[in-house]
């Protein structure tokens, strides 16, 4: 009887050790692949960004590529365009997604599933396919212009693809259409966790629906809003498919994004992979800076 505990302990120790070995095995395998397929290319491209030259004729140039970034008008325009896209697009999209999620969370709403699917559906479409369809919809003689002209909103067709301003607007419309439903899902699931009694209490206190939205819903969803705005920012910084297929960066370079510039440097022009790598590291830099800012802003005030 007295020996029982020690046997149990021994058994437990053996089990414990086996469990540890297994856990490490589970950790080590993915770590290995992450190192090989993520960290190694990251470090390799950092090294590559210190070289410059055409094709395979790369030479070590130190930080010259990074210096060149500051004088490269094409790069500066690409950065400006990218920033314009997310400064206008992300707030619009997040606000729309919040409104949709609140409306679709309404208990008394009928056909909830149908509406939720409809709003979410765009985000499962292929980026290239929807870009091409948008291109047809917004062509000079396309259906959007025809409808607007029929409603007498405009007299002449808007050159959605040919005018620097409208081309930017078009890209913003396109990515908003594509990603609003995706973000809505996050808010919808977060709203399920908000205690309904808070709303009941505020209704009794006489709060209007709009007051509830701004005073309760948004503060309650703050962490989720922060999360979605960070992922959306990173997504917009890497924006490629839409400008590539909708406007090919044009007119001029009015809608060229940083990612598209990287593509141009590697495949459209005489390839300079070193400089292209330096440009891609600028995205890393922007992502870090913006994420820090968003964390600061999103932190609850004390």
């Amino acid at each position, binding site marked *: 009887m007295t020996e029982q505990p020690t046997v149990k302990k021994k058994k437990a120790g053996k089990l414990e050790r086996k469990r540890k070995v297994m856990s490490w095995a589970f950790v080590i395998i993915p770590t290995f692949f992450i190192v090989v397929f993520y960290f190694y290319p990251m470090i390799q491209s950092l090294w590559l960004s210190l070289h410059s030259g*055409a*094709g395979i004729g790369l030479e070590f140039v130190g930080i010259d590529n990074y210096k060149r970034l500051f004088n490269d008008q094409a790069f500066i*325009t690409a950065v400006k365009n990218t920033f314009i896209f997310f400064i206008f697009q992300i707030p619009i999209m997040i606000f729309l997604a919040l409104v949709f999620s609140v409306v679709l969370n309404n208990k008394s709403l009928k056909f909830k599933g149908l509406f939720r699917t409809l709003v979410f559906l765009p985000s499962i479409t292929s980026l290239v396919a929807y870009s091409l369809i948008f*291109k047809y919809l917004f062509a000079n003689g396309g259906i959007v212009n025809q409808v607007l002209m029929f409603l007498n909103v405009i007299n002449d067709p808007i050159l959605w*693809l040919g005018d620097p301003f409208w081309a930017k607007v078009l890209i913003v419309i396109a990515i908003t259409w594509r990603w609003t439903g995706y973000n809505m899902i996050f808010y919808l699931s977060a709203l399920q966790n908000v205690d309904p009694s808070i709303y009941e209490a505020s209704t009794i206190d006489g709060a209007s629906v709009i007051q509830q939205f701004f005073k309760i819903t948004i503060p309650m969803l703050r962490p989720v809003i922060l999360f979605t705005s960070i992922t959306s920012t990173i997504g917009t910084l890497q924006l490629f498919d839409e400008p590539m297929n909708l406007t090919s960066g044009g*007119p001029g370079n009015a809608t060229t994004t940083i990612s598209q510039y990287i593509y141009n440097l*590697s495949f459209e022009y005489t*390839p300079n992979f070193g400089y292209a790598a330096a440009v891609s590291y600028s995205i890393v830099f922007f992502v870090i800076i913006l994420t820090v800012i968003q964390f600061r802003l999103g932190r609850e005030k004390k």
Partner: protein
Amino acid sequence: MFNKKTALTLGASALLVLTACGNGDSANEGEESEGASGEPNELTVWTWDPNFNVRALEIAEEHYKQDNPDFELEIVENSQDDVIQKLNTSLSSGVETGLPNIVFIEDYRAQSFLSSYPGSFVPLEEYYNTDDFADYKIKAGTYEDEVFNVPFDSGVTGLYVRTDLLEEAGYTLEDVTDITWDEYVEIGKDVTEKTGVKWMTNDHNDLGIIRVMMQSSGVWLTEEDGETPYITDNESLKLGFETYKELFESGVMNVHNDWDQFLQAFNNGEVATVPTGNWITPSITAEDSQSGDWAIAPIPRQTIEGSVNASNLGGSSIYVLNIDNNELAGEFLGATFGSDVDFYQDLATEINAIGAYEPAAEGEAYQVESEFFGGQMVNKNFAEWTQEIPEVEFGGSTYEIEDILAVSLQDYLNGADLDEVLEKAQQQAESGM
């Protein structure tokens, strides 16, 4: 039991991932492979455009097979962008597996590839007589005094016009033959006013028409060395910008945004002229209802000394990669694209392709009168104009500089001073070199 099972699962999944990653030889033998097979009698080609380049290769294969029955040609068709991308990634990786034996490269991009990947392409002078071809085509593929290309389509330009609309406005084909761009603009204004049909169509992002003007004047975006940007002092370019603005502001230019809209513009009868490369012929003739209404005239010239009524737009050449079987690839190209007059007759008849091979123009297929073009000998005309195209050094930065100029053009159209925008473009181009 539990432990064994888990260990097994783990091991199996790790194995799975590993095998999926290792691109063993088995992957290259399957149908998926797009690179050269390594079979002694088989060649792989990468190209684009199923109706033009691919058809041309198929015709070449038929001709070559007559003497070499064992020969096999594997044609891999992708969009031009994809071909460029695949070629760049394969060549820069330094691995030979997955590369084709033969690849088509647009002339404007040739120098960029030849200088970026020295040693990756094979010189081809020994396989055909370069003197038989128009000089500007040979020059496009010449790098460090060696010829790396076998020229394919000439890219010779013409002015496609709707004679019925000209007539309606009181003009004849004669009036638009051998004219200057200034005259072209003036007639255009009149025709647009009288018929209500736009004179031509263009995409503000595609400066092809300005490239056409420059080559007709014998200059390019870079100086003779192929490197120094030639923008501020480039009279031809400056004049080209002015002509372009005049066409746009006078309202005779229809603006399209992509290739489909371009084709629609003339197929739907929205424009009266199309000044472009002869590769557009199949697209023009695709609209049966307009048969007999079209004619071709030489491309307008610039009001600059030495400018001629002949130019070139976007032709391509064929290159051989420095991998196994490159001798066979060279012989195949030399025997077909490089010297076979009959082959060129078939090309002209079947796909309206005008090669840059001079002896071919004597053949019968070039003497055929085209019903669609009101009885004109279209192939013969193009072949003649091909011989007059001035040769220029394309250099390796055509599209780089053109992207800069597309912005300049946009600024200029919006009212900026021409000298200032070009000055800015010059600086930007220089800083990027």
